[in-house]
């Protein structure tokens, strides 16, 4: 597959603790790539290594197959979590300044920025000072400054924090739009709902390690492998006895309508599902069994707890 960004064995230590430990990952071109992980896992450090804000102690970062240099960084649009805007500066001038720093001509920058301001409904704010803006407004300005020069790689650190649901959705649509126009998007988040909605690939970072990488579909299928939801009429003791040795219950059973109970089980890898079905059918009055594809949220929690 064509990867726009390749990270090879990157490690980074700060005094006394390892922020990244031998992290490798590949970001396919045109993907929307989620960087997940609990607070302090090393997401932001990884982003800062990619943008060359921090230099890695070991390992390589390749953009389009070439090691990232100061010049290459200009092809990356980066929106940090802690928004950085000059407070005393006027919104429009500021956006112009960043756009021109990214190499746009004055005229180009102005036309494109005006378009974006119109689109995100902040055109009236062009002449205001940043310090007069609400948090969400400032974030829109920051977003525009990040994307206006249409870099091939966009990196957002927690882009949705601070937005109301309507504006968050707005932003989501814009990010999808940017992807459709050819950009690759990486964003870090711990908002799992947004991941499921728009990411096609993810990497899960926990305790400085890359715990899990891949396309969302595959990960969910793999992580969900051999998890089943069983609807039956047996009590827990009877049920556990029936599957003993070939499967383990993941939850206590839960009563549902019509005297039926529901239990989530995990079938041991080398066991055939048919055998389990047969046993359950014989002993527990099996009514239904279906494979469960876990949500990214479940996977996240399981991975962080070391259960994956």
């Amino acid at each position, binding site marked *: 597959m064509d990867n726009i960004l390749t990270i090879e064995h990157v490690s980074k230590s700060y005094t006394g603790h390892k922020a990244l430990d031998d992290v490798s990952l590949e970001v396919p071109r045109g993907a929307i790539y989620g960087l997940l992980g609990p607070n302090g896992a090393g997401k932001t450090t990884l982003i*800062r290594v990619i*943008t*060359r*804000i*921090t230099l890695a102690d070991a390992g390589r970062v390749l953009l389009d197959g070439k090691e990232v240099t*100061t010049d290459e*960084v*200009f092809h*990356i*649009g*980066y*929106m*940090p979590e*802690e*928004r*950085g*805007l*000059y*407070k*005393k*500066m006027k919104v429009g001038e500021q956006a112009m*300044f*960043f756009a*021109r*720093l*990214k*190499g746009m001509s004055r005229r180009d920058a102005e036309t494109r920025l005006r378009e974006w301001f119109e689109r995100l409904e902040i055109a009236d704010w062009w002449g205001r000072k940043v310090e007069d803006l609400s948090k969400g407004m400032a974030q829109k300005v*920051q977003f525009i*400054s*990040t994307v206006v020069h249409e870099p091939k790689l966009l990196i957002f650190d927690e882009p949705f924090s601070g937005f109301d649901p309507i504006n968050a959705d707005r932003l989501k649509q814009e990010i999808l739009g940017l992807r459709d126009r050819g950009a690759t998007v990486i964003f870090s988040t711990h908002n799992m709902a947004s991941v499921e909605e728009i990411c096609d690939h993810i990497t899960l970072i926990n305790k400085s390690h890359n715990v899990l990488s891949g396309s969302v579909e595959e990960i969910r299928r793999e992580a969900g492998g051999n998890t089943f939801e069983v609807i039956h009429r047996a009590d827990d003791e009877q049920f556990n006895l029936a599957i003993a040795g070939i499967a383990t219950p993941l939850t206590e059973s839960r009563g549902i309508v019509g005297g039926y109970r529901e239990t989530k089980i995990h079938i041991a890898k080398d066991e055939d599902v048919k055998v389990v079905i047969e046993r359950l059918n014989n002993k527990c009055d099996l009514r239904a069994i279906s494979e469960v594809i876990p949500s990214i949220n479940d996977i996240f929690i399981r991975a962080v707890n070391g259960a994956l």
Partner: protein
Amino acid sequence: MRKMWLIIVREFMERVRKKSFIVATFVTPLLMVVLMVAPSLVMFYGSSDQKQIAVVDRSGMVSDKLVSTSEVMFVDQSTMTKAEACRVFNAESGVLGVLYIGSEIEHRDSVQLITNESSSIMIEESITHQIKSVVEREKLRAYDIENLDEILASVATNIELATYENNGTGEEATMESTSSGISYALGIILGMMLYMLLILYGQMVLTSVVEEKSSRVIDVMVTSSSPFQIMMGKILGIALVAVAQIAIWATLVISASKFLLPVIFSADMAATNDMMMQMIVGTLGDTGYIASLFGCLLLFVVGGFLLYAALFAAAGSAVDSVQEGQQYNTIIMMPIILSIIVMMSIFNDPNSPIAFWASMVPFTSPIVMIARIPFGIPWWEVVVSLVVLYASVVVVVWLASRIFRIGIFMHGKRPSWRELLQWIRTK
């Protein structure tokens, strides 16, 4: 280069458009003029009310010849004894005091001023001077010289010393007039101006770097420009503000020297014999000289500023808040303050070894040299000093940028000196 230029322009525009800049630029010179003119105005108009002095003259030859001035009025009370006068003209009487003149004037302790409140040196000098001339005149009179008054009037002489710098040609017309008084004043003004500019604008660099860092704008900036470009952009942008300010001041002063001074002084100049006044007006009116002084000021300001700004930028990058920067701040300010101390000492001898060396060492040279220039020092000294200054600017900027590129991304604990050294050394 284009990116650095964009940063420079941003820094410059942000500052120049501020009201505080406009106010500082146009109000400061006004304030300085007021400060310079005020003392003489006070002396002129604000002289305190005339004080009375009761005179008890036992010699009988002084009292009626004492001339009252704007400060004191002499009232003859020779009919009283000293003791009586002291009792009558006590603190409640509103009189400054009693002047007692014994019969033998030249004897020790024979002339006394017994005051109710402290008198001023000016009053005391005026009294001594008057009594002295009265007595001298009386003595001369004793020789019975004819037309004594005319003779004395024709003898009275007024000398002003005009000083020139020897340029070896022996032609007076080509020699530059020098006056330590004017050099002193110019030196002090230039040195102080540089001191103010260094501290003011140096601080501005520190604050600006800390703001950039704490607002995390820097994170966005580095994806489009290198830390070196950012640091130099900031320093040069702020330097440009300083240059703009000096240029405005220079324009004001030069145009004043060209257009305003001739108008004010042309009428009086012909009338006045005051050499000192002529010299001051002459110096200030010498537009070329003033322009060359401002030229030097500009070169030393820019060099000195770059040197210190680089240090302030490095300090700002290493800390998280302006308060935290205070420690570095104090250390960086030390040579600036030292320069001022040395500058004060050079007025006694502008060519002393300490003055010479302090104007060569880059950290003190801008202020000390600019203060020495009006004394007419050899040009090679100025050139050497400038070369040394600009060479060290290159070195210091390089060192500062090594610290800056790492410090600007470090948050949390303030780095130790060892860490700073390490930053300089890391590749």
